């Protein structure tokens, strides 16, 4: 289920000249000591502002026919269905100016219902599900909409601090229209009591920015007698000044 990047896709009517810088109150600081791994990995010197040249205003594109049938349905990638609570995750990808981002690649990966990744380095003693890989891909349509079917991932312990548990989450990776718009983040679930004590989630300074990483249970997306539906919208860097940018 690979994706071959190529140059055939023309996804964008306008050619941007610049992407305004984000309000960094909405982004985590690189050094966040409560998340211990940042201490030896976060750069200590200030970042240097890079003007947007052609290198930043371009980025990888990919073919429309690159995805397989079951790439966006993680419950149909094996002979039998995985164990767990089947869910639908859908939403829109747009930019900071409210424009939909069509034909962009979304990749996801996640633990299974027991909180175990199908990964050699995951030593959590919870069962592997032979019917669940935990990886998926989708392209947004003309309106920037995407849709996945998967199972709700379980919480799992990690070694950051004593009795540390990650809240249930799904990792998402998006490209958007160019090098500047690349985003990797995590989607969380409403009402999860582990969010309050999770340093990765809490590394985001703004309460509103944290809230926006929590999906909404949506009765319209939910399919009766089959699967709960969650809505999760992505916003990527935009091409014009945004009213949310803080004054400098």
């Amino acid at each position: 289920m690979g994706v071959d990047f190529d140059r055939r896709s023309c996804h964008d009517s306008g050619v941007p000249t610049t992407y305004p810088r984000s309000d960094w109150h909405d982004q985590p600081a690189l050094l966040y000591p409560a998340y211990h791994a940042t201490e030896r990995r976060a750069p200590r010197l200030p970042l240097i502002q890079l003007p947007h040249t052609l290198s930043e205003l371009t980025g990888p594109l990919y073919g429309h026919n690159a995805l397989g049938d079951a790439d966006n349905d993680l419950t149909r990638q094996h002979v039998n269905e995985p164990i767990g609570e089947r869910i639908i995750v859908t939403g829109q990808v747009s930019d900071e100016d409210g424009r939909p981002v069509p034909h962009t690649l979304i990749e996801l990966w996640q633990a299974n219902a027991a909180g175990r990744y199908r990964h050699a380095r995951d030593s959590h003693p919870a069962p592997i599900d032979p019917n669940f890989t935990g990886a998926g891909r989708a392209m947004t349509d003309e309106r920037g909409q995407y849709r996945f079917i998967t199972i709700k991932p379980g919480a799992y312990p990690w070694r950051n601090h004593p009795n540390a548990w990650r809240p249930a989450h799904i990792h998402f990776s998006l490209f958007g229209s160019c090098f500047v718009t690349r985003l990797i983040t995590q989607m969380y679930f409403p009402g999860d009591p582990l969010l309050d004590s999770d340093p990765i989630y809490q590394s985001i300074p703004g309460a509103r920015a944290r809230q926006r990483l929590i999906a909404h249970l949506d009765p319209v997306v939910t399919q009766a007698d089959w699967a709960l539906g969650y809505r999760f919208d992505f916003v990527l860097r935009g091409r014009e000044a945004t009213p949310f940018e803080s004054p400098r």
Partner: protein
Amino acid sequence: MSELATEPCLASQTVGPFFHLGLAPDDRWRHVAGPHTSGERIRLRLTIVDGDGRPIPDGLIEIWQADAQGRYPHPADPLAAEADPTFSGFGRSATNNEGVCEFETIMPGRVRDGRGGAQASHINISLFARGLLARLISRVYFADDPALADDAILALVPESRRSTLIARRDQAMTGQWVHEIRLQGPLETVFFEV
């Protein structure tokens, strides 16, 4: 102000240690140049080390580069239609236990700087890892390139730190360029904000 509903970009979160599952299940994307791609073949060998000088065995590097003539296959590049059709410009590779990843690619050409000149040959880098709450952005330039002296981006970097962005030839292997990305320490690599 736009009439469209606007929200700022979503917050970044770390890729964690298990990203291979979704982003790098195999190593196909470390092969950036195809058999018919024009240009000088190079292998770029990157090593990532943390603040203790230890290699990072769970990092992910993405590269984005122009073709041999400095063109990007993207609508923002006015020369996109002429870009090498066999070359995507995009590569992705996870580091191994020694903190190393390698890309089979070509020497990028000089990209126009939008002011009538050209940038020195460079490869754009995105670095992701457990312990990095957001992507780190850097560039790789090439030693002994006369264009380095006039490069407008390098000129923004304090002179004492420019060497952290410059790969060097591997004397032991023809066509191989080696480069260390140091996340901390006296030789901390220059990282950019876009």
